[in-house]
Structures are given as C-alpha cells and as structure tokens.
C-alpha cells in the first residue's frame, strides 16, 4: 500500500462567519490522482488552499509526508515548495520568460545555483512539451501554453504532490486537451495530484478517486465508476445531470 502524502483531518474554514469547509477528511497517497468535483462555491479552492495554507484553516490538521504540516516560518515555506500549486488563472510572472518563471523558485526558494536552477527549469519545461518556448514571455504564449509553463514552474521544484485548482477552466475549449494530456502524463510518471476540475470525462479516465464536495462537505468519495455511475445522493445525481 502506498503511503499517504497529504492528509486532511477535520479541516474547517469560515469566511466572516459563513462556513466554506465543514470538517474535511481526505488523504492523497503516493502516485494517486484524486479529483475534486462539486458545484461552484462548494469549497474546492478553499480546500486546496488550506493544504498549503494560502488560506489559513480555522481548525483541523494537515499532515504532509506523514508528519504534521508546519504552520509558519521557513518550515512552511519548505512544505509549500514540496506541494506545487497550479492556479486557474495561471498566475505566471509576466515580466519573466517561461524559463525564468520556472527557475525563480529553484534559485530563490530551494537555493540552487543559477545553473542548477536553469537546468531544473529546462527539464520541467520539456516535461510539459515547451522546451522550445523557454525564452518566450507569458503574453506571447497561448493560454494552454501558459498553464503548462505554470505546471512546469511547480514541477521544477520536484514536488511530492501537485495541487491543481481548475487548471483548464480559464482555457478556450480547443486548448484544454493539451493541458489535460500533460496532467495525464504526470500521473503516468507517478506524481501525486489533488485536482479540482469540471472535466468529468478526464476525471473518469485519469482519477484513482473522485471526491464530491457540496456546501463545504464531502458527500461522496470513491473510484470513478462508483461515484459517477452509481451516485448515492440526490445532490450528486443532480450535479452530474446538469453538466
């Protein structure tokens, strides 16, 4: 049995008294791809952001690599480095080239030499099929290419898990496939991933487990066939019908 990389126990979060997450228990094991599905506003982004504490959870525990995840300081920064995050809006650094985007954290967070950081960035860019666009600025790249650079930026740090927040939701339909292909290939390489997505066909094919979130609670969780083909709750049935 693979070891758990990331474990959430009883994670809760409220914004101005309004609960967004209510006692989330979830784990992602080595090499596992877990897909988070659920309506908009159900708490998917908040859940992902509580993992690396971009959003500070109100309660509960996060364990990372079998140990309690640090809650501040350098230890938190180090943990974040090992939990790559990919955002819906890419959030690439517009003033830097693709290579510089991917090399920045290896140099400034991991403390690699300039050469080693560039090497790591180049390897990551070729992994997402963009070795030939290393010198391009983000505004010269398509949305799909930008998101792949953002994935490379996370990969260059050799993360133990990737947290992806609707990585294809901001893309034109014809560009979605290129990004999902990259994610699929990372899965084949054994990269653990927790991904919020509306791409149900992709989730069915690539995910080991699907987790359905509604109003800040996990309502269903299991292998794709079970969750997608034999939904137990009315909420999930209506969610799947409306897609």
């Amino acid at each position, binding site marked *: 049995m693979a070891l758990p990389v990331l474990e959430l126990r009883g994670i809760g979060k409220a914004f101005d008294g309004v609960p967004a997450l209510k006692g989330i228990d979830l784990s992602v094991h080595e090499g596992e791809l877990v897909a988070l599905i659920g309506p908009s506003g159900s708490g998917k982004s908040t859940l992902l952001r509580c993992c*690396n504490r*971009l959003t500070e959870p109100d309660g509960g525990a996060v364990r990372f690599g079998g140990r309690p995840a640090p809650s501040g300081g350098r230890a938190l*920064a*180090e*943990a*974040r*480095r*090992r*939990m*790559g*995050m990919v*955002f819906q*809006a890419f*959030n*690439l*650094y*517009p*003033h830097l080239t693709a290579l510089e985007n991917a090399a*920045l*954290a290896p140099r*400034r*967070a*991991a403390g690699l030499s300039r050469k080693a950081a560039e090497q790591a960035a180049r390897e990551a860019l070729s992994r997402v099929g963009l070795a030939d666009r290393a010198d391009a600025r983000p505004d010269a790249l398509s949305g799909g290419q930008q998101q792949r650079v*953002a994935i490379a*930026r*996370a990969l260059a*740090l050799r993360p133990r898990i990737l947290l992806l927040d609707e990585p294809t939701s901001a893309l034109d339909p014809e560009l979605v496939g290129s990004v999902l292909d990259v994610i699929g290939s990372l899965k084949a390489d054994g990269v653990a991933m927790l991904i919020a997505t509306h791409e149900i066909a992709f989730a069915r094919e690539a995910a080991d487990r699907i987790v359905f979130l509604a109003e800040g609670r996990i309502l269903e969780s299991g292998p794709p066939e079970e969750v997608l083909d034999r939904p137990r709750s009315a909420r999930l049935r209506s969610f799947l019908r409306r897609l």
Partner: protein
Amino acid sequence: MGIFFDPEVWGIAWPPIRSGILITLALALASIAAGTAAGFALSLARTLPVRRLAAAIVVYSDAFRAFPPLVLLVVLYFAAPFAGIELSGFAASFLALALVLAASAEEIFWAGLTSVRRGQWEAALSTGMSRAATLRRVILPQAVRLTIPPLTNRAIATGKNTALASVVAVPEVLNQAASIQAQTASPAPLLLAAVVYVALFLPLVRLGRWLEDRFPSP
C-alpha cells in the same frame, strides 16, 4: 526691456547666484533622495500585516500631502525653536521637502505595489519563496512601471520647491537673486534666477517625459 537684461547687473548677480546653484542642487538632491527612500520604506512597512502601523502610515501620508510645504517649512523653522528644537534654514528646508515628498512617494509606491494582482503573491508564496524574495523578484519589478512617471513628477515638484528655502534665509538661487535685487534696485537678478531655474529643471522635465513614454501607465 534693457532693464531686465542689464549686462552690468547680470555680471554682479552671477557669482552669488552661481554659488546659490550649488545650494539649490544640494537641497534638491538631498530631499529627493531622502523623501523617496523614506516613502519607499513606508510603503513596504505598510505591506506588513500590522494594522496599526498601516493606519499610522496612512495618517502620516494624508496629513503631509495636505500640508502646504511652505507652511511646514515656516513651522519647522520659526515655531520649532519654542519647543527647544533649533534647525538651520537648510535643515528645516530639507526636512520639510523630504517629509512632504515621502508622503506622496509612499502613496505612489503603495499604488504600484497594490496594482500587482494578489495571484502573483500567491503563486510565489506557493513555491516556497519568502515574502521578501517575492517582493523583490516578483512584485517590485511589476510595480515599478507604474511608479516611475508619477514619482518623477513629484521629484521635479520637490526640486522646484527648494525656492521656498529663500524665506528662511538659505542662500540658494532665489534668495541670492533677491538680495542682489535689493542691493542694485534692478529686476535683472530675478530674470537671471528664472533662467537658471529653467536650465536646472528642464532636463528633469524632459527625463520625466521620456520615462512616461517608456513606462506608459496602463
């Protein structure tokens, strides 16, 4: 017309005005450098998650942008001695100009910093970069584009406001011109001073125009 350009009076006025140029330049450079640096430091301090500090900085910035520099200068020079603080004319002028510029520069830097979308902070923090490294490598390079043109304008205004120092007897260009004018009973020294000011600040104004073309505001 001749009375404005009387060569004899220009000849008398030039040596003191020339020495005034050095003082004008020294005062301008010192207050621009200190004011910009202080404004930058304040804007960085305002990004720290310390509510009271941020609120205090906003109060400072608003108050000193509301103060006419001349009033501040006069208060520093003529009123401060009653509180036991004796400042030379130069020191009072430097302080007044730097304090006012710092307030404007803080707002300008702050506007630049906050113009960078939050996602940029989050992306960098999510890769394990420190707040300081994020600020230096990700946020500031993007913020700078927005700050350079207004900052240049404030620097020019500060440079021109050095003429206020003449009211507290700092022997800068205007003050020198005014004394020669009184001695000679001729307006020519004032004309010479006007020419000197244009010669001093026109290059800065041109630089500002060039920077505005290079860093157009979005």
